[in-house]
């Protein structure tokens, strides 16, 4: 066991995947010799060669098309989109092609592709680097969408994603890359792709969240504890499919729920989770479903990030409001 940042845990997962399956290929813009703009693929080309880890021309649709074609030739592509805001360039290949291939060919072919991409706010990036666009891909049948919130999950989920015969969009929050260290086992291990995890047990109210907002929710829970409110924090980990059983279980247990996402109110995944709870656990609720999210504007200019992004204070306030309903 070693204490690793999330970025190191991701590199370790990619290393394991390259080692255990020669069909695994990693490619994207600057992922080769440079080791990635965040060093996620550092040292991998030197270790496995240019045949396995390679740079591409600067074109996201071409990268995703390359992945599709390589998958049809029996490879297990792990392409990188440098920032998820650039997804729009590749949206047809991701949501119009890769997600549908198995379905459209009646199960006779598969697309074992893992698309890695950083996203997320709080690090003052330029335009269209930090946008939370997971809602777009979560709405696409045929894709699985995974968002880890800590180093341990990141490694185990990424190994699972690469081993999966289904296409997985694996989103890495930039603020989590280096802000948190955690014990991460050496070697290969997996975390299931369709299971949420309780990151903090509690009795009074449930926070259901994912990505960086898990860490912010845990901080809020600590503060709320001092006020005598015992919070349970459920980390979705997979935003598509949702772990319905885990969501319903925590709601049934506490009877109160606050959904927390970094994305705008009209985006993200909160509405889907709220609908599920309203549909299947309404009689367990003692208060309306609370929602914490960002305002419905495009992602802010970087100087306004702290003002715009949801944070611990917003979560604390919303939990108090739902508790006092």
């Amino acid at each position, binding site marked *: 066991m070693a204490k690793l940042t999330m970025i190191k845990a991701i590199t370790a997962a990619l290393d394991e995947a390259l080692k255990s399956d020669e069909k695994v290929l990693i490619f994207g813009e600057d992922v080769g010799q440079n080791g990635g703009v965040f060093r996620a693929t550092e040292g991998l080309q030197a270790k496995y060669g240019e045949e396995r880890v390679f740079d591409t021309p600067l074109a996201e649709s071409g990268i995703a*098309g390359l992945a599709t074609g390589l998958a049809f030739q029996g490879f297990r592509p792990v392409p990188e989109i440098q920032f998820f805001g650039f997804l729009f360039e590749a949206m047809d290949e991701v949501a119009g092609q890769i997600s549908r291939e198995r379905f459209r060919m*009646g199960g006779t072919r598969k697309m074992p592709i893992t698309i890695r991409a950083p996203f997320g706010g709080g690090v003052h990036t330029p335009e269209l680097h930090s946008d939370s666009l997971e809602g777009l891909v979560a709405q696409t049948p045929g894709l699985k969408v995974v968002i880890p919130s800590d180093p341990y999950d990141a490694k185990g989920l990424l190994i699972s994603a690469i081993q999966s015969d289904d296409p997985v969009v694996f989103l890495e929050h930039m603020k989590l890359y280096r802000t948190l260290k955690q014990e991460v086992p050496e070697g290969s291990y997996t975390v299931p792709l*369709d299971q949420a995890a309780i990151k903090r047990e509690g009795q009074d109210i449930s926070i259901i969240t994912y990505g960086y907002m898990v860490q912010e929710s845990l901080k809020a829970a600590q503060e709320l504890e001092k006020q005598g409110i015992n919070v349970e924090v459920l980390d979705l980990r997979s935003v598509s499919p949702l772990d319905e059983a885990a969501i319903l279980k925590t709601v049934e247990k506490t009877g109160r729920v606050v959904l927390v996402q970094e994305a705008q109110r009209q985006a993200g995944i909160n509405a889907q989770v709220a609908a599920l709870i309203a549909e299947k656990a309404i009689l367990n609720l003692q208060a309306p479903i609370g929602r914490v999210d960002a305002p419905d504007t495009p992602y802010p200019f970087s100087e306004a990030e702290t003002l715009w992004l949801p944070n611990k204070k917003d979560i604390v306030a919303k939990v108090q409001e739902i508790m006092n309903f």
Partner: protein
Amino acid sequence: MGKIDFNKLNKTPKITKVSILDQDGKIIDDDLMPDLSDEELVSLFKKMIWSRVLNDRSTKLNRQGRLGFFAPTLGQEASQVASEFAMDKQDFLLPAYRDVPQLVLHGLPLSKAFLWSRGHIEGNKYAEDLAALPPQIIIGAQYVQAAGVALGLKKKGQANVAYTYTGDGGTSQGDFYEGINFAGAFKAPALFFVQNNHYAISVPREKQTAAQTLAQKAIAAGIPGIQVDGMDALAVYAVTKAARDWVVAGNGPILIETLTYRLGAHTLSGDDPKRYRSQEEWEKWNKKDPLNRMRKYLEDKDLWNEEEEDIWVNEVNAQIDEAINEAEQVERQKVSEYLQHTYVDTPANIQAQIEKFQAKEAE
């Protein structure tokens, strides 16, 4: 620094155009004549007739409501059939929606092609050894995917090519450019066909680009581009065969523009070509009919006659009858099967929907 005279800058590179057979079925360039035996020449022509009959019958079957989506191929038999004729079974085909003839000649059972037209999942269930994808509806997507398939073939050390088709309108897409550029950068074994049939629905090719040829777009990717008389089966075959050999030898991709003409409508979903092109233009191109000139050529060589053609047309019609009957007998689709094919590892929410639909389907 002197003044730059933009009028003198080069806008139009020299692009080679290959023709072998003229409109009267006479060989105009014996040096380029492909190495085909008499049997192969007849076989090629029979496939072109097959495609023509398939087009005519598909049109009728569509009118009768026995087929669904259909994009006519009338006039493009040389471009489609003769290029397919130069390919190996293990070469990987990425067709566009008009390229059903190549797909069937490559090994897709005709009944499945009809099921695809009707909108049935069975039409896209491909045998494991069929090196092809279903017709692509998103114009340009087949190009970026072809670059990936070609890179895969290269990585496996397989002596085959990925080949794909788009139309003249498709050359305006970003994916068209990204596809040829990626294949070029990776020196991947891909053959990119542009079937320039002069119209993208109602928009003439001149409105797509100021470029004088579509083949010259290859220059932007740093790969060879060539034009071929797309109404001339021998020229299409000769160019494709030579290009395939060059690509398989590890030299990287090639872009081939076939100059052809869609004598019919864009699709049978309400397009009326009389709205946007003249009868004179149509007649000019109809005189270039790829079947007429190939027929004359073979008749002059005493390799083909009217009686043989009648027998063959009847045989093709019988094959089509059999295929459409087979397609019509396939069981209705089930939503539960759709759900089963959406993922390999079916998530719980999908499993719940499978059970719901299985119960509904059992009613």
